[in-house]
């Protein structure tokens, strides 16, 4: 599992060449609340950053049909763009190996919200309201068999979703050795 301990915690090192520097150069201006309201929209797995609002898969269904289906297919598997929903009952090993989507690959449900909000729809990025993003997130989680159609997704519930594949992710183990890994 990836933890913050997976990477070395850096000491706030002082570079030798900075010893003669002033404490600060004073270039730049303090960040304003307005700037952060506009820019700081990211969402962490612990839910930090999730906005107000909520949505359900049922509410997400018509939004998906109107704004997403043209690229991802009516049920999220047909494309032409990225497959979003698990294809069930695959037997061919090659097809199974490629069947890596939200429901069986993504470690955190918060990522679905974060990504849709920042980048989708591809041709109208940044155009969705927060309730729309909650609803679409709920829709995709439901379509992937993670939640029920009526489960309400909001800042409290979304971080609590347990994604089935989360335990598979491990930190990088290559650098302690010259071995091929």
């Amino acid at each position, binding site marked *: 599992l*990836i933890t*913050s301990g*997976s*990477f*070395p*915690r*850096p*000491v*706030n*090192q*002082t*570079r030798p060449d*900075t010893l003669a*520097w002033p404490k*600060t*150069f004073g*270039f*730049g*201006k*303090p*960040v*304003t609340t307005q*700037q*952060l309201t506009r*820019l*700081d929209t*990211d*969402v*962490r*797995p*612990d839910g930090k950053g999730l906005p107000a609002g909520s949505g359900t898969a049922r509410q997400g269904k018509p939004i998906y049909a109107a704004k997403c289906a043209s690229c991802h297919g009516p049920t999220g598997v047909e494309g032409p763009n990225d497959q979003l929903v698990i294809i069930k009952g695959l037997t061919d090993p090659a097809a199974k190996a490629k069947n*890596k989507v*939200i429901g069986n*690959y*993504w*470690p*955190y449900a*918060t*990522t679905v919200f*974060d*990504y849709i909000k*920042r*980048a989708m729809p*591809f041709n109208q*990025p*940044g155009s969705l309201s927060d309730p729309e993003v909650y609803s679409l997130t709920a829709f995709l989680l439901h379509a992937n068999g993670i939640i029920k159609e009526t489960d309400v997704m909001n800042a409290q519930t979304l971080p609590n979703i347990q994604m089935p*594949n989360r335990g*598979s*992710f*491990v*930190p*990088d*183990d*290559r*650098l302690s050795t*010259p*071995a*091929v*890994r």
Partner: protein
Amino acid sequence: ATAAVVLAQTAHGKAFQAGISRSEWVSPEDPTKVLGVPPGLVGTRSPHVRLAKLPSEISSRTPLQDLFGTITPSDLHFERHHNGVPAIDPARYELVIHGMVARPTTFTLADLKRFPSVSRICFLECSGNYRGQDDGKIAPQQICGLTSQSEWTGVKLSTLFREVGVDPKSTWFLAEGGDSAVMTRSIPTSKGWEDAILAYAQNGEAVRPEQGYPVRLLLPGWEGNANVKWLRRLELSDQPYHTRQETSKYTEAIGGGKIRQFSFVMDARSIITYPAYPAKVEKGWIEIRGIAWSGRGKIARVEVSVNAGKTWQTAELQEPVLDKAHVVFRYLWHWNGQPTEIMSRAVDETDYTQPTLKELVAARGGNMGYHLNPITAWSLQPDGQVLFKAT
């Protein structure tokens, strides 16, 4: 020389005035008998030199087989972006640094340029940089053209960390782009203290739009995607964000049901760029040439085999051999015209040795995916054709 210039302008006035492309000029039978083009504003390529990236829907590849030395011309630097190249007005550009910092600060482009600066030559490489093809008819550009090298200039991220007072407890930061993917990656704060750069210049001039104009994150030796372009925000944190790029993408199955995440460093790699498809060669003396690089540090040596991997010889490295940089290698060889396979393998200062594809896939439990850096073999045919062969 006023009169001469008047004459020159009669002949070439348009070029002189308007910087007309040299491609509109035809080479005369004897150029010594024709007055040439006068000095201009911006130079041009010879119309006889056709160089281009190879674009797909999502990336564009550097023509490694057509290049010399280690610097990639900026207009041939590989591209990989997720929602296209944004057109950013530098006057409106701002970089915000906030989160676990004492002084959340917003910097204009001019602010960033006022800080102590640094330049370094290093490579960038997309961690999805491998492609094979069964008929062997692929060039280095197709195989691994998602790597390029520039001299980057900017401000050390550690300088800005110091300026904003990064909390010593911060372990990760989020880097966010101003493109329409609003690209985000979580980066260990330690890399920021170590050698990360916010680059505003590339090969002497402003960073090109395709490479992140006006400012990109540069993480020497780390996978391209983490080097966030069009950088607009850094948020210092005590945990990673698990963004889509670092979960759904840029993670790789390594066997036993495990998926490797945050695999930043690019392993050592090399490729022979001459002779290589589509070049044809004659028997006789051939200088085998290529590039080698490692995200772990310096290339220690490059070994070349001219007998399908049975024996290996040490190639010559072009000085200076820089840290986390493409280095040129050469090996002089006499080809007797018999079919054979030639290949190169890089060894870096950590003793990591570039593997074959089979070794690599075996080490990853049979999986392909990101971070494939296999030895590339070239099969020399009796007719001088040079075909790719997977190892």
